[in-house]
C-alpha cells in the first residue's frame, strides 16, 4: 500500500493515476479485485464491511447493487451482535487528504491513489503498437504521511466562524432502534448507507440551485483506514481490525435572508470505503438540513428537508417500493377504473 | 489534418472579426476559397440558407432585412449573413461604435450604404437582429455583429 507526494504537480497527476493503476489487476483476478469501488459501494449501501460477502452477493444478484444489498442486509440483520464501538474519525490512518478550501493547509495535501485527475479517455485496446502509453505500476518507495493532521477547520473554529453543529449528533443504530429519523444522528447514519445515486442527486440539487443560494466548500476530505478497537476482557483496549473509510467536513455559506450571527454551517459526512462522492453528498446534506432547520417547513427545498431525506435516501425502501409495482395490481386497478367510469357516466 | 486546421484558423478569424467589428482578419486560405471554408468550419450543409445565408456580391437595399432576426427570448436564431464581396464592391466610409470598439472608429467597408441601411432596419429591435460577415476577394474577413452601431459618413 503506497502513496506518493510530489512537489511538481504535473507529475502528481501521473503519480496519482499510477497508484490507482497499481491497485488494479487489469486482467485476470476475480472481479472484486478489479472493481474495488463497486465493492465499496455495495458494502457502504449494505452497511456491512465484508468485501468477500459483497462480491458474493453481487454475483448472486447478477450485478444489481440494490439486490446485492438486500441479500447482505437480510443476512446481517439476524447475526448476533457482539458489541458496539465508537471510532474517532481523528484516528483515521490517512492515505489521502485534500483540503479544497485551503491552498496550503498545515500538514499538507496528499493526493494518494486517485483517478480524479486522470482524463476520462476510454482505453479501447490492450497491447500492440497502437496502444496509448501504458501507465506502469509505481515502484517508488512511498514517502511517509504525517502521523496526524491538524483539522483543516481549526483556523475557522478559532476565529469563531463555524456555527457549532446543533444539535450534536447522537449515534443511532437504525437497524435496531425505531424513532425519529430526522434527528441529526439518525440522518447521518442514514446518509452513511444511503443510495449513492439518490444522495448525489439531492446534493446536486442543493448546489445546482434548487434551494436557497448556498455556497458549499469542502474543508477537508480524508480517506484511509479507521482502526476498530474494543475493550479487552482482561482490561485495556485491543485493535480488532480496520475499516476503509472516507470522512468529509464541509462548510456552507448562506448569508442571504439575514442571520443574527454570521457564521458558516458545518456539515460532516462519512462513508465506508472510498467512493468519495458518498461522503461529500452526506456532508452537504447534513449542512443544508442543519442550516435550514430554522426555516419554515413550507419553504424547504428537498435537499434541506430532513424529513424528506429521511424517507427517500434508503435504497432498499425506494427500490423495493418502485419495483413492487411489478406485482399484480388488478384488484386495485379494477377499483380505479370503477371510479373513472362512474365519473364519466 | 491540414483541412481541419484550416477550419480552426478560419473560425478563429471569424470569431475575432465579430469580436472586433470593422477590423479585417486574415483568412488562412485564398480569398476565393474563403466563403466556402467559413461555411464548412461553422455550419452543417443543411443549415446553409437558413442559419447562415451566403450572399454573392452586394446585398442591396432589401436583402438583409428579409433574413431571420430571432426573438427576445432566442436572439441567437438571428441569421448570419456571409457576404462574398465582388471585385468591384461598393465602398462606404462609416463610423462604428459599440462592443468590441474601445472608441468610435472610422473605417471603409466593402458594402453599399443601402445595404447598411437595410441592416440597420434588421437590427432595429435588439437583441434580435442579424450578424454580418464580409469576405473580400483578397481574403480579408470583416465582422459586423448586430450590436455595432453604424453611421454612414456623408
Amino acid at each position, binding site marked *: 500500500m503506497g502513496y506518493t507526494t510530489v512537489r511538481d504537480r504535473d507529475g502528481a497527476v501521473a503519480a496519482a493515476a499510477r497508484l490507482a493503476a497499481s491497485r488494479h489487476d487489469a486482467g485476470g483476478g476475480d472481479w472484486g479485485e478489479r472493481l474495488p469501488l463497486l465493492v465499496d459501494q455495495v458494502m457502504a449501501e449494505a452497511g456491512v464491511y465484508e468485501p468477500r460477502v459483497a462480491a458474493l452477493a453481487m454475483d448472486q444478484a447478477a450485478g444489481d447493487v440494490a439486490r446485492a444489498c438486500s441479500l447482505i442486509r437480510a443476512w446481517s440483520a439476524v447475526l448476533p451482535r457482539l458489541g458496539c464501538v465508537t471510532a474517532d474519525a481523528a484516528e483515521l490512518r490517512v492515505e489521502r487528504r485534500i483540503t479544497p478550501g485551503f491552498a496550503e493547509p498545515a500538514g499538507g495535501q496528499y493526493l494518494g491513489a486517485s483517478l480524479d485527475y486522470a482524463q476520462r479517455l476510454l482505453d479501447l485496446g490492450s497491447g500492440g503498437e*497502437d496502444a496509448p502509453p501504458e501507465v506502469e505500476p509505481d515502484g517508488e518507495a512511498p514517502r511517509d504521511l504525517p502521523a496526524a493532521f491538524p483539522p483543516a477547520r481549526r483556523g475557522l473554529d478559532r476565529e469563531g466562524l463555524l456555527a457549532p453543529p446543533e444539535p450534536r449528533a447522537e449515534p443511532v443504530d437504525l437497524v435496531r432502534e425505531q424513532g425519529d429519523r430526522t434527528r441529526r444522528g439518525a440522518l447521518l447514519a442514514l446518509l452513511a448507507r444511503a443510495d449513492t445515486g439518490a444522495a448525489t442527486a439531492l446534493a446536486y440539487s442543493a448546489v445546482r440551485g434548487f434551494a436557497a443560494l448556498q455556497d458549499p466548500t469542502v474543508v477537508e476530505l480524508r480517506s484511509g483506514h479507521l482502526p476498530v478497537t474494543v475493550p479487552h476482557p482482561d482490561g485495556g483496549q485491543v485493535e480488532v481490525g480496520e475499516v476503509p473509510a472516507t470522512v468529509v467536513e464541509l462548510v456552507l455559506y448562506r448569508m442571504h435572508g439575514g442571520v443574527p450571527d454570521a457564521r458558516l454551517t458545518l456539515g460532516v459526512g462519512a462513508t465506508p470505503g472510498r467512493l468519495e462522492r458518498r461522503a461529500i453528498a452526506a456532508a452537504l446534506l447534513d449542512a443544508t438540513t442543519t442550516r435550514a432547520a430554522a426555516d419554515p417547513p413550507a419553504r424547504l427545498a428537498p435537499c434541506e428537508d430532513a424529513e424528506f431525506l429521511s424517507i427517500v435516501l434508503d435504497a432498499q425502501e425506494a427500490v423495493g417500493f418502485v419495483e413492487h409495482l411489478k406485482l399484480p395490481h388488478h384488484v386495485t386497478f379494477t377499483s380505479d377504473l370503477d371510479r373513472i367510469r362512474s365519473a364519466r357516466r | 489534418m491540414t483541412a481541419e486546421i484550416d477550419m480552426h484558423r478560419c473560425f478563429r478569424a471569424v470569431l475575432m472579426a465579430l469580436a472586433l467589428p470593422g477590423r479585417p482578419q486574415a483568412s488562412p486560405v485564398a480569398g476565393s476559397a474563403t466563403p466556402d471554408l467559413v461555411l464548412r468550419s461553422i455550419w452543417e450543409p443543411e443549415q446553409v440558407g437558413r442559419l447562415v445565408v451566403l450572399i454573392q456580391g452586394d446585398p442591396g437595399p432589401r436583402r438583409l432585412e428579409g433574413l431571420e432576426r430571432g426573438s427576445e427570448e432566442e436572439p441567437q436564431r438571428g441569421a448570419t449573413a456571409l457576404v462574398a464581396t465582388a471585385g468591384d464592391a461598393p465602398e462606404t466610409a462609416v463610423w462604428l461604435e459599440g462592443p468590441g470598439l474601445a472608441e468610435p472608429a472610422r473605417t471603409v467597408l466593402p458594402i453599399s450604404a443601402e445595404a447598411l441601411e437595410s441592416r440597420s432596419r434588421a437590427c432595429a429591435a435588439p437583441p434580435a437582429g442579424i450578424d454580418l460577415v464580409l469576405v473580400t476577394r483578397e481574403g480579408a474577413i470583416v465582422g459586423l455583429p448586430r450590436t455595432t452601431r453604424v453611421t454612414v459618413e456623408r
Partner: protein
Amino acid sequence: MRPGLARLLRRDGTEVGYGWAYLDETAKREVRRALLKAVAVPGHQVPFASREMPVARGWGSGGLQVTLSVITPDDVLKVIDQGADDSMNAAALRDLVSRTTGVRATTDAREATLIQTRHRVPEDDLHEGQVLVFQVPIADPLRVVDSRPSVTRRLHADRDYAAVWLYLYEDHARTGQSSFTHSHPVEVERGYVMSPTPIPRFDLPRLDRAPFLALFGAGREATVYAVPPYTRVEPLAFADRPFEPERFDGPCALCGAADTYLVEDDSAEEPRWVCSDTDHCRRRREAAR
C-alpha cells in the same frame, strides 16, 4: 492478442484514435455556432449540444469544449485553476489539449494567446487579441431568484431583473452588506445580467472594457456566453452602496505585492497570505532579485 479497437478508429493526429483538438468536427461546429451568437449578443446564454468530455461534468467540460473549438496551432496556451498553473485539474486539462493539438503551453499570461481559467483572471495586464475562456459552474445569475431555466429565460428576455435587485436590497437592509461573494452578478453593456463565474469580486473591474475577448463555457448546463473586448461589465450595486471587493490586511508574504488577490498559506510556522496567481508572484520575486 486481438488488435485494439484503437487501431480500427485510428485517425491522423497526435493522439491515437482522436482527431486534431480531440472533438469531432460536428461537435466543434456546434460550439462555434453558439460562440458566434454569444459574441453577437453579449451576456446572453446561448444553448448548445454539450458533448460528454474526458473531464467530468463540473470539472471544466464546457471550458474545454470552447478551448478545443477555438484553438489554432498558432496559439500559446495557459490553463489555470485558482490562479495556479500547477493545480491538478489545470494540469489535466492542459495535458489533454496539448496532447491532441501539439500547441505550446506557457505559464506566463503575458505571452499566452489563449487562457483557460477556473475562478481567476490572471494578475498580469492582458492585451487585445488574447482570448480568455472561463469555466462556468452555474451559468444563470438569476439562480438566486429561481432555479428553473424556464422561468429565468423569460426574465432575461424581458430584462426583468427586479428580483435580483430586491435580493441585493434585502441584504443591505438586513445585514448592511451584500451577501454575494464570488460570482457577483454583473450587467453587460447595460443589458443582460450575467454571472462572471466564481471569480472573486476583486477581479470584476478587470472585465470592464477589457482588451481581451471573454468566452464562458458551461458544459454541464450546456450554454456558452461571451463578452467582446471593450464592453461594459458592471457589478450590480446600488449607487449609494458601493461595490466592495475582497480586502486583505497586508501584502503578499512572498513577493510583496499589495495589489493582487491573496490566499492563506498555513504550511509554514506562521500562517501567511500569498498571491493566488502563482506565476505572477514568481516573476515578481525574480524581478526583485
